[in-house]
């Protein structure tokens, strides 16, 4: 089975110049947890998830502590988010993106998802245009 046969054919994406506030609006309304970042020709240039924004709003030592017990209250997090809401998402996006071609095999995607612990992978054509995303549930649904 090819990726194009199982992927979600949705082009919801964001440009690197758009703000964190706009990203949060899109994620919240669309129910997505991540979106590909594209250029003016809809070619894939990055990826950003809610985790990237939360990480940006938390102190750098958060990952070392592996918990939020050190945060005295949610106001601290809220203040930090307000500080970064107008920042361009370019500042926080992932530039090294794991992607697949629409004519790759489903096995290849499954391998990437398991090995790299990824939930959503952008799908592109051979001209680098975004054509959809493939998620874990796309794969699981196909296997049932």
């Amino acid at each position, binding site marked *: 089975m090819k990726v194009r046969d199982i992927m*979600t*054919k*949705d*082009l*919801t994406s964001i*440009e690197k110049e758009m703000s964190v506030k*706009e990203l949060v*609006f*899109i994620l919240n*309304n*669309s*129910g997505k947890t991540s979106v590909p970042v*594209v250029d*003016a*020709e*809809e070619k894939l240039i990055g990826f950003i998830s809610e985790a990237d924004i939360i990480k940006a709003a938390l102190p750098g030592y958060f990952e070392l502590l592996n918990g939020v017990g050190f945060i005295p209250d949610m106001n601290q997090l809220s203040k930090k988010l307000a500080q970064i809401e107008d920042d361009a998402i370019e500042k926080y996006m992932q530039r090294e993106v794991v992607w697949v071609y629409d004519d790759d095999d489903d096995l290849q995607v499954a391998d990437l998802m398991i090995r790299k612990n990824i939930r959503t992978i952008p799908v592109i054509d051979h001209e680098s*245009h975004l*054509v*959809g995303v493939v998620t874990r549930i796309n794969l699981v649904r196909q296997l049932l």
Partner: protein
Amino acid sequence: MIITVTPNPAVNKIYWVDKLKVGSKTQDEFLTRATRSATSASGKGVNISIFLAGMGVENVAMGFISGHAGHLLINDLRDKGVTTNFCWTSGETCTNVTIIERGKEHIPIQIDESGSGVTTTEIERFIRRYKRALSRASWVILGGDLPPGVDDKFYYRLTELAKEKGIKVVVNATGQPLTQALSAAPYLVKPDLRESRIWDEMILDTEEHIISAGKRVIAMGVDTMLISHKVAGDILVTAAGVWEVKARVEMSQLHHLIGADDVFLGGMVYKLQAGENVEEALKFSMAAGTLYAKHGASVCREQEKIEQEMSIITLEQLEGSQ
């Protein structure tokens, strides 16, 4: 790739009833039970996207969506093989209700919501997304009414942007949004005459009036004007001539008129983008629309059945050289 834009799409809830009870006093008398129901994504561009996807043509559906109904709509489109690229907004996507009473299938009752408002920021976000999508489009189809907050020059603006890139544009709308779009000279225009046969001070009722209106629009730089004449008959006007296409069908055979017009236009674009001439495209599209009106969505996407249905279609050239 083909892009369809439906600024104000809807979830269409259809109820089929044996007898619609209205104006009764007791609950027993006013409760009408549906014999069956169906829920689907709808809207002019959306319906064309579904038809084209069924015919195996890659296309992307765009527009504004929001809320719970927005999720229903987008999931239905994906299930039908359409690629989605909608701009999420605040509010709630429309839910339209259609009631079809047994024996009165050709005059369904339809209740349409107006739609949530769209903000200037959301419009500009859509325009950025639309410009990106144009980079790989060959045809754009703009269809339906505009949601509150979107000004009448919206289709004009979208037509201009597409034409700058040499993309053919089809506009299927009514009122000021259509009139304004004409200034950008789209490739094909089809006025939506469901609510009124008066458009831009022209009464589009008789063959004469329709042809005269068509010629006026062609003189503005539009290549093709398609106007609904009768339930199963349309008139097409180009600089080269005027044609009337008709389906030999009894009204009692038409059970699914809602959306049939969109399948008709989808059939035109399907053939024209494949390089077919206008006569062939007209016969095919009328056959597709008629098949849809007779049997619903499932059969009208089978090429073979549409071609069989072409046997009941007649095409007459009213003006121009053969």
